[in-house]
């Protein structure tokens, strides 16, 4: 049996990068976006998101945790033994993260 080369290490790398981003940055953004701005504690006109460095930051903040989700969701649904076929599930998860990355880039370039 020859050893097969796969792109699996790439998914693992994106998974852990996304995990780090989610662990350090997501809680404060949920606080700002979910509570502080809607409840009027902080003002936000959205102008800040047009800053080029902020856009770059947002790209990392939004895109990487999508791969973290894809990897975890794929393995967890498999582990749950729900009878979901593996290949379509992988396509949904990893494909979803790739589409999410492209959409994020598109939105950030348009604003």
């Amino acid at each position, binding site marked *: 049996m020859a050893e097969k080369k796969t792109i699996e290490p790439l998914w693992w790398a994106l998974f852990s990068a996304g995990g780090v981003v989610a662990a350090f940055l*997501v809680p404060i953004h949920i606080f700002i976006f979910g509570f502080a701005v809607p409840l009027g504690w902080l003002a936000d006109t959205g102008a*800040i998101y047009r800053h080029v460095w902020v856009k770059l930051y947002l790209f990392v903040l939004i895109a990487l945790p999508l791969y973290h989700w894809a990897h*975890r969701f794929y393995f967890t649904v498999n*582990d749950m033994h729900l009878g979901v076929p593996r290949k379509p599930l992988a396509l949904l998860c990893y494909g979803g993260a790739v589409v999410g990355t492209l959409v994020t880039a598109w939105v950030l370039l348009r604003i």
Partner: protein
Amino acid sequence: MTGTRPDKSKLYYPKMTPTWWLKRPNYILFMLREFSSVFIAVFLVVFLIQICQLTRGPEAYADFSQRLGSPGWITFHVVALLFALYHSITWFYSSAIVLPMRIGETEIPRNRVVALNLALLAVVSFVVLLLFISLQG
């Protein structure tokens, strides 16, 4: 067999039901940790939709923001925040195991590594909050 993975046809597969993870508290915590990624992803998608409103003008952006003040969305964000913090804590624990930190020959105790990461989380959060307020201008 030269591959690193064993021949799949010779592996033993225990029969498992879809509810196996409800049988022990640790299994349930494992599932909660895994599903934290779903809440984080949903939050980020909603955040992206909000940012996308900027293409329709500042009024659309403000309207969207106001809608997030409804009890339903606040509830969602409370749940999402709890899951996100649960992810942070479990992530710090597993990274303390996967990437042990050393000073010279001695390994730093895991709990201390987790505490250091939590302190870093607090500092990073504070810096993001300060930048968010100061860049508003």
